[in-house]
């Protein structure tokens, strides 16, 4: 069997503004994950250029990318990816330990409303609670960019809305540029801007006139 080259993204160009809440919408295979990976410093495009402020990420070494993720990026995964052997508080502390100017782990848990569960292990928390711990872990380093990959993908509606509320509040209070990728179209209404991706190409890039509160979203 021969190798077939698959182009995940073609001729994509966009800017993420400071403090902006951006939603990337697209079906699976549309290239939205690839875009998130590139923005998050997990991957490098084969051609084209990527900048974080004046820093060209597309030419950064592996160590530089690690440094970028460590200082500036907060990740929230679809399946939370908490460390099972660490408590909620410790999962947050894991990141504050290596970040330059972090908030106190306890404060981060306060922000997501979980301070009373801080000594529980992941296996003792519900899915929504786990995702909120993951959010606390992501924001505790005071990131410039908060990247969320299908943050509600594994959650039911009610819990999903709670998680989105936390993301919305964090974005407003901390001013971190937030990118949420999802194939759940209604989520787009809570964003400042929405980008549609299909087959590796941006099909639309529109600003919302107003951000809808998460509790008013329906799907």
């Amino acid at each position, binding site marked *: 069997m021969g190798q077939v080259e698959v182009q995940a993204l073609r001729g994509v160009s966009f800017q993420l503004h400071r403090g902006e809440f951006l939603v990337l919408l697209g079906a699976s295979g549309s290239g939205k*994950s690839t875009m998130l*990976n590139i923005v*998050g410093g*997990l*991957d490098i495009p084969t051609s084209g250029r990527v900048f974080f402020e004046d820093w060209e990420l597309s030419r950064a070494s592996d*160590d530089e990318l*690690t*440094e970028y*993720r*460590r*200082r500036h*990026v907060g*990740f929230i*995964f*679809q*399946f939370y*990816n908490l*460390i*099972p*052997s*660490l*408590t909620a508080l*410790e*999962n947050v*502390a*894991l*990141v504050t*330990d*290596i*970040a330059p100017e972090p908030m106190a782990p306890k404060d981060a848990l306060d922000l997501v409303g979980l301070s009373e569960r801080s*000594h529980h*292990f*992941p*296996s003792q928390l519900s899915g929504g609670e786990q995702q909120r711990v993951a959010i606390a*872990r992501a924001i505790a*380093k005071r990131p410039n960019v908060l990247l969320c*990959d299908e943050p509600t993908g*594994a959650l039911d509606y009610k819990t999903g809305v709670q998680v989105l509320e936390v993301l919305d509040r964090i974005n407003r209070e901390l001013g971190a540029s937030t990118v949420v990728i999802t194939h759940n179209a209604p989520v787009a209404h809570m964003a400042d801007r929405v980008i549609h991706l299909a087959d590796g190409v941006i099909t639309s890039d529109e600003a919302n006139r107003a951000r809808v509160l998460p509790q008013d979203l329906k799907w």
Partner: protein
Amino acid sequence: MVIPPLWRKLVRDLRELRGQVITIALVVACGISSYITMQSAYDSLVFSRDRYYEQFRFADAFSTITRAPRPLLQHLQNVPGVIQVDPRIVEQVLVPMPDSPRPASGTIIGRDVTRHADLLNEVYIKTGRDLDPMRTDEVLVLSAFAEAHHLGPGSKLKTVINGTERQLVMAGTALSPEYIMALAPGDLSYDPAQVPVLWMNERALASAFSLDGGFNSAVYRLQEDVSLVRVLAEIDRILEPYGSLGSVAREKQSSHYMLQGELSQLKMMAGFVPYLFLFVAALLVNVVLSRLVQLQRGQIATLKALGYSDRSIGFYYLRMVSIIVLLGAAVGVVLGSWMGRGMTNMYTSQWFRFPQPEYRLRVDAALFSIGISIGSAAFGAWWAVRQVISLPPAEAMRPPAPAIYRRSLLERLALWNLISPVVRMIGREISRKPLRLLLSALGISLATGLLVVARSMWDAMDYLMDVQFHAAMREDLTVAFTEPVDPAAANQLAHLPGVQRAEGLRNVPVRLTLGHNYRDSVLVGYPEGGQLRRLIDVDGHTHSPPTQGLLLSSVFQNVLQVKVGDVVQIKLRQGDFRTVHVPVSGFVEDAFGLSGYMMLPALNRLMRDRGATDTAVLAVDEDQLDEVQARLKELPHVAKVSSPHDFRRQFDEQSAAAMGLFTMIMTVFSSVIAIGVVYNNARVSLSQRTRDLASLRVLGFSKREISTILFGEQAVQVALAIPLGLVIGYYMAVGMMSGVDPEAYRFPIRVSTRTYLYAVLVTVVSAIVSALILRGKIKRLDLIAVLKTRE
């Protein structure tokens, strides 16, 4: 041909696991090759020996007498159980060699060339020809001695026979079953250049020692089912009036005894070391398979759902294990037979001389070791697979329940809060699977232990040599007389220029009897006020020989069942050959042989003579050592002059070569174990925690930090394993030493700090090497896949 899908899966699984397959196969290879090396060397030596003994009619028993008349032979022949008696003349000979400062002291044996068809202890002519019956100046020379001095047929040999210098001609070089290893009496290390054995026409030798019509040695062939004790007792009774020094069975004959000692050590090692490797291999198979089976839970469930039986799935993993073991076995058999051949060659070229040494690798021994390996590995595999095939398919298809962690009691301590989350991860991971941690630590500790054992034998020898040659024998030169001389003769040596002090010692051969038990022994008389020889036990404490009664080697407590205060019967084998009774005043834990110790005046009283000296010990001015030696060589009655310092040096050289090789092999093997265990464990943790570790990488942890988490756990294992390994090593050394015949040597268990350090160092380096091998895997961690996958 269609390859069944399960076989394809097997090949791919093996390829996927190649790192682990290789490390496990190597551990198996070490086990099998060490077994085959030792077992085949053992079998080869036994085979070569037995064939040699049979073809050259090695005697079953030996008698030494002062002189007996030929007609006595008929009486000996009539002893029930005796099939054949050969009378011989065996005497001492001095061979001054131009390339050696001291004359070599050895044995000359009369040879009746006319009747070698049925002669016991027949010689094998290696080069040249047999003696010419008509010539009285020809000799055959033991080939080891001849080779050491580059002598061959036709070489002239200056000898001193019965005090007379004689020029002899070498007819040829020879081997004898009686001198497979020729060791000078009382010597501990083997220097063939110092041990001449000559064969001369019997008639010529008889006239040189005025033994015409008589003999002073007899060798016997005995019936197989006969009671040795009874036959020897009867023979001794007949020979008693002729100055019998006692008869011994083959078991106590010096060459046979040395060979036997080496053989039993080989056998013991073959029954011990390899099993250690196989145990570790089984452990590794278990660790790797249980992980693989966990990872393949879903696949196993699918196979079961498709209708594959538990048995066929079980066999699948058994096949996998068997392939790994067989890979290891192939390497092990090839390597083992190569090393076994090398070891056999080393024995037969340096120490044990056989006419036709032959390497033998027994097929059943090879199959046995492979069978044991497969068996132990299959056991490890069964343990792992059992858990999965017992699950119903539906349950096995679901991922295992998320790992549950709890805060341990330890964590409630205030100190815990100071520890970083990374260290807590390590701590919790360890406390969650303590059994696995302990087993892995045990595996590594066996490697550490092996290293300790390998070097502890060296340490014991070294210590013993220190005690013996620095503390006990403080003389510069040891002079052995051809026969006991007047004590004045020893004292006169003090007047030689350069000699600062001379002391005489007396050794009297005896047989000690208590009840039914007896042993041949030597009574050693220490001079009063002597400074050059001290009696030192294996712990380095000095003992003073008693003025009343007898101080015995403590081994006697076991062999004679004797206690302090018991009166032992002593049959003297010198002087008037009386039997006397002496109370035992104490025991000393000496290092070699079976001896009794007394002060010289007490021994002289026992002998009822004016005293005699057979050994003189001298303190010599260092600058004049060579001159003194040269002078001593000229003196009558001097059989041998030796120097403890030379001996020590020579011993060190010999043992350094042998032990160096042994230690190197053990080091390689132990490293293989340590690497095998550490690598496999880290590899297992890596694949079990790929998701966690990759998540951390995404969160901004560097590769170095990830490695710290992964190797932290391994480091704890190694840290736990090392002290355990040192303790295990110590007790394995104790176990090994207990296999040494206590009547020959008492090895003190001395493990030097250097040995411990060495074991620690090799273990740590091996662990680091396996970490380095795994670093590549961490570099290739797929960060993106982690975002998408669910456990």
